[in-house]
């Protein structure tokens, strides 16, 4: 498909939001959305890693296709992601210890975040061009960030309420996610209606 860039962007950001509509990166979405400060750091880290690894995977895929070694895709993509995470961690540690203290714990978690691996897989299977891939990576990771940050703030507000003890915990978070996901259904069909 020759999708327009704006359509790719809106689609990955809102209509098919990675978290709320496609169910990617759920563990961190549920596990790390308790606090706003954690959530936005996770969001930023994920955005960074997704964009970098999307670019690297795009290049790698060209090589794999050239040598007809598509069967190595999964393994190379995960290695790229793990390496990106590792290098980012080392880089931040060297350049800004303060930032490392703030972000350090989140970085290793990104390797096992499905959303990160999904971006290169999707861009390959949809035959996106380089620019399309980058736009897709920005939008998809932005959608992840929007979702986790919104949920974290909603959860912080719910912290101040008198939630019955039985409902506290993951179940409540899931109900909030369900309502958010129902609200995101309003974006369905955006850009190709009427």
């Amino acid at each position, binding site marked *: 498909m020759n999708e327009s860039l704006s359509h790719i962007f809106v689609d990955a950001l809102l209509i098919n939001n990675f978290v709320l509509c496609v169910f990617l990166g759920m563990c961190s979405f549920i596990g790390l959305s308790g606090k706003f400060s954690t959530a936005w750091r996770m969001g930023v880290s994920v955005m960074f890693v997704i964009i970098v690894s999307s670019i690297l995977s795009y290049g790698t895929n060209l090589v794999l296709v050239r040598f007809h070694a598509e069967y190595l895709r999964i393994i190379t993509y995960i290695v790229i992601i793990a390496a990106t995470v590792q290098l980012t961690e080392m880089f931040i540690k060297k350049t800004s210890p303060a930032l490392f203290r703030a972000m350090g714990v989140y970085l290793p978690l990104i390797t096992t975040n499905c959303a990160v691996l999904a971006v290169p897989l999707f861009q390959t299977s949809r035959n996106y061009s380089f620019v399309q891939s980058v736009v897709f990576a920005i939008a998809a990771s932005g959608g992840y960030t929007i979702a986790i*940050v919104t949920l974290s703030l909603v959860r912080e507000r719910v912290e101040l309420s008198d939630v019955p003890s039985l409902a506290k915990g993951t179940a409540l978070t899931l109900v909030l996610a369900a309502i958010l996901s129902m609200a995101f259904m309003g974006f369905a069909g955006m850009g190709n*209606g009427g």
Partner: protein
Amino acid sequence: MKPVIELRTSPHLHAPRSVETIMRNVVYALLPICAYAVWLFGASALALLVTTTAACVATEIFICKMSGRESSVGDFSVIITGLLLGLILPPGFPLWMAAVGGFIAVAPGKMLFGGLGFNVFNPALVARAFLQAAFPVAIMGYTPALAVHRLSEFIPTTFAIPLIKAAPLAGWIEKTRVDAFSGATPLMLEKFDHVHSELWPLLIGQRAGSSGETPALLIFLCGAYLILRRFMDWRIPAAMLTSALVSSAAFYFSDPSRYPNPFFMLLSGGMMLGAMFMATDPVASPVTPLGIWIYGSLIGLITVLIRLKGGLAEGVMYAILLANAMSPLIDNVTQPRSYGARGKEVA
């Protein structure tokens, strides 16, 4: 003289208004709309309103009892939820589904968070979003206003048997002898068939739509009552309607042949009911002065985007729910600068 002295802390004066007063007045303001809805859509609308309200109240009583709390029905807020839920469903909506909606509104929509004041999302809209996703066909079964037998006969879908598909509406609509009714609301006609509607019927509610969303003028007046008595924040409807008007005018003037008249946008669908009674739910809206303006404008803008660019004909509900979700964020970034604060801001 040996007075019994009571030790209380300041302030010893209190403004006369209480939560109960506010909520009771909102119920009063909704009653004319309910009555008009029954006149427009008949016995089915009445049955619908009774069912949603009863389901909401029953759920609240049940949950209060289960959790050993004092019943909170006396604060009237659950009655608002019930009436509004009835008003935003199509008049012939199957009653069993409406009852499910009432349960959803109050159980997960409100009591799960701790009851009045603690819910993040508008309970009535949570229920409607649930129903729309669960029963998308039934919730699009609209019937015409002022159908002939409306007061003596129920719309057949009203008494659909639980869990069983409702019978199609076409036969009944033919019987009502309303000319050329296609089973679509003005917004659907505009969006899917590019049929424009007159503004006057929209103003007085003689059109298809959810049972209580159609009489824009009456809704405006009832809202104005609440605004004048200061039971409701005027800034939210003001911001929402202005931003909807401005953004749809921008579309309209970019291509008048393709996009509807901006005033059509204000008067059609649930815009007026949403602006006056649902976006204004204080519980789910921000508290900061700037935040309230942002919140209202955001709802107007998203509504217009969904209506004109999205896959659905109507977007008020989703717009309000999305803005509800954003309201903690809006609140946090618009904390007023406190008197004497030196540039240091709330994180």
